[in-house]
């Protein structure tokens, strides 16, 4: 017999212990990350960045208090991440949390630093009110300062934090030349690309003249979407640049498409013959692909004009990538009016130049020779896509010109970085990964494409799909029913046996 009081005391003790354990667990916890891409663990790139810190970095996080739990979670995630940064960097990263809503002066300071508040709905005593919430941070190292105006939850958090630390801590950033003067877009018109490049490099516009050579400070030059012809003297300078071991990223259009007039034509810049001499032939064609983007078309239906989205195979969505640092972790790149390329040089092992296709079209693709008129309302069938895996981008390594080792990345489309950037983040990633690989700095590639967001299922035929659906639905149920029937039969036969025994 137990006494009531002793029973209640032991229950109260157990409840107390459980509550304390839960309270402690929010401060002292251990995390095991089982995701395939280690999404919630600091990546090697971050550890490298933190290892190289020469001076302490101060992170001032301006976060409002009393926010709804889903937003407050961003704050606790950010705090957890900062704790890990501090631990990994041996406390070279110092952080503090400030609540700007407490003090108008702090709020002013946050706004001056470039952190603008967002409005969130807060429920307070049966009333919904709007509250100005700050979710930003300022990162400082010595005189340098970077601002994260708004902290994104999830895997993007690590990327933002690490790249901003890298941006202010990197010393002697290598110069990247962005070629100008032949109709190429200026750096200012490519904000996303420029933003990524500024993390590791100092991109500079480079205009070639006949009298001066390319400055030696440039190790890598990017040639993006020229539209005018490039004089031979400039091409000779690029050759000289390769000869002394410089690297070139080349993204240029062999053909151009005009959606207004539904017409596509060839453009000649001189780069095509220059490249053909190096063994890379960019064809005068449009690659069409069953996996493609869409265009908006106005359709007249009776008295109404309707805007409809029509698949347009001239805008391939490329998702076939080689195992290569440049394409690591990429999911999909939109390449509007891309051409196919081929390697005409010798593929022998004796060849000193190594050609690697980086991106290819899908299993259902084809080519249309330029010039061509586009029929937007065309009904595309499988017969229009007889070819597969046409190379669209490639890497060249070796003694491309002269006797010095050099590297080149060739992408047979100039528009993908300049126009397609808004449609998919990976367009910019492909371009910047290319420059990283050419400049021997592949650390950020891993970080840039961390957190795979899409794991598409394979395409299967409708009949197979139905089979899979119903098999998965029915087989487990039938297994259960089958087991039940067998078990009952067995029981019954045992029972019958016993009954017979007792009668016998």
């Amino acid at each position: 017999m137990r006494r009531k009081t002793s029973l209640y005391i032991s229950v109260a003790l157990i409840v107390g212990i459980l509550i304390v354990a839960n309270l402690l667990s929010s401060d002292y916890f251990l995390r095991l990350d089982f995701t395939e891409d280690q999404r919630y663990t600091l990546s090697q790139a971050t550890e490298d960045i933190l290892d190289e810190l020469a001076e302490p970095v101060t992170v001032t996080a301006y976060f409002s208090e009393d926010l709804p739990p889903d937003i407050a979670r961003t704050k606790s995630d950010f705090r957890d991440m900062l704790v890990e940064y501090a631990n990994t960097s041996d406390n070279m990263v110092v952080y503090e949390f400030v609540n700007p809503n407490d003090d108008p002066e702090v709020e002013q300071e946050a706004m001056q630093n470039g952190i603008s508040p967002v409005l969130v709905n807060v429920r307070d005593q049966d009333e919904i009110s709007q509250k100005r919430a700050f979710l930003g941070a300022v990162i400082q190292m010595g005189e340098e300062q970077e601002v994260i105006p708004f902290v994104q939850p999830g895997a993007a958090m690590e990327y933002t934090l690490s790249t901003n630390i890298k941006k202010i801590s990197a010393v002697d950033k290598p110069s990247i030349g962005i070629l100008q003067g032949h109709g190429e877009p200026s750096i200012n018109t490519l904000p996303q690309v420029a933003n990524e490049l500024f993390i590791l490099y100092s991109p500079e516009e480079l205009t070639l003249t006949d009298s001066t050579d390319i400055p030696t400070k440039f190790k890598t030059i990017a040639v993006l979407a020229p539209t005018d012809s490039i004089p031979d003297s400039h091409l000779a300078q690029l050759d000289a640049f390769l000869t002394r071991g410089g690297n070139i990223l080349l993204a240029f259009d062999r053909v151009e498409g005009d959606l207004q007039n539904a017409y596509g034509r060839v453009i000649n810049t001189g780069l095509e013959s220059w490249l053909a001499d190096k063994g890379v032939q960019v064809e005068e064609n449009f690659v069409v692909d069953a996996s493609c983007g869409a265009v908006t078309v106005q359709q007249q239906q009776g008295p109404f004009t309707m805007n409809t989205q029509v698949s347009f195979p001239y805008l391939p969505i490329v998702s076939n990538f080689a195992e290569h640092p440049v394409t690591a972790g990429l999911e999909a790149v939109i390449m509007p009016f891309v051409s196919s390329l081929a390697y005409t040089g010798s593929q022998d092992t004796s060849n000193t130049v190594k050609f690697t296709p980086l991106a290819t079209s899908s299993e259902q693709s084809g080519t249309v020779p330029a010039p061509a008129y586009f029929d937007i309302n065309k009904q595309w069938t499988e017969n229009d896509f007889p070819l597969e895996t046409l190379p669209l981008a490639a890497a060249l390594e070796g003694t491309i010109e002269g006797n010095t080792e050099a590297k080149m990345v060739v992408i047979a489309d100039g528009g993908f970085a300049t126009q397609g950037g808004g449609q998919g983040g990976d367009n910019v990633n492909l371009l910047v990964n290319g420059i990283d690989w050419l400049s021997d700095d592949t650390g950020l590639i891993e970080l840039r494409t961390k957190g795979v967001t899409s794991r598409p299922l394979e395409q299967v035929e409708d009949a197979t799909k139905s089979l899979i659906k119903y098999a998965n639905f029915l087989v487990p149920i039938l297994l259960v029913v089958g087991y039940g029937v067998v078990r009952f039969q067995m029981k019954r036969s045992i029972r019958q046996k016993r009954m017979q025994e007792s009668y016998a």
Partner: protein
Amino acid sequence: MRTIWIITQRELQTFFDSLIAYILLVAFLGFSGFFTWLYGSDVFFVGQASLQSFFSIAYWTLFFFIPALTMRMLAEEKRAGTIELLLTKAVTDRQLVIGKFLACLLLIVIALLFTLPYYFTINSLGEVDHGAIWCGYLGLILMSAVYISIGVFTSSTTNNQIVAFLSALFIGLFFHIIFDVLADSFTGTMGEVFSTLSLSTHYESLTRGVIDTKDLIYFFSLIILGIVLSEVSLSKRNLV
């Protein structure tokens, strides 16, 4: 330990000798399979190689099935008077409660094993994040364990199965959804407390593919609490 295992085996045998196990398994697999493969945001509609659609439907089906499974555990023994017989044998209250708890948990694990074909199918159709899927299954098992311990507790308080079923559902509802809703309408500490109490917060954290001691401690606290309270309510009959 041996005694517990004998009770567990006995209970499991009873499940499979009566219709309970079959009805539960067929209904669970029917509901889950239907919404995972045939209707709503099914696998092919979402087009992603993940079991997310299964996990979100199983989160609800298990919530409803478990009280139906646990309601008779102790209530029936009390009503029929067999509990006295049981406890006069060399079986302690704790052994009985844990044995019954384990039997229910094993049945749920068996039910989940029957959904492994889903995993193999999706694995053959695309690239699967294996870690996230195993953590998802772990989350389902822990969640079931919590509701089983709640169900065993409510079953120990009454000798009426319907009362046990409804009160288990009522208590479960708080952890399943009400705390989550409350958390959204409070800010600051109160919001955090409700958010910590909400089972869905911890379940979602697990299904991401990250095993966090915070979540494990939460689940095990509720399981232990349920089992201890059941034991207490059973032993009340002997109190002076």
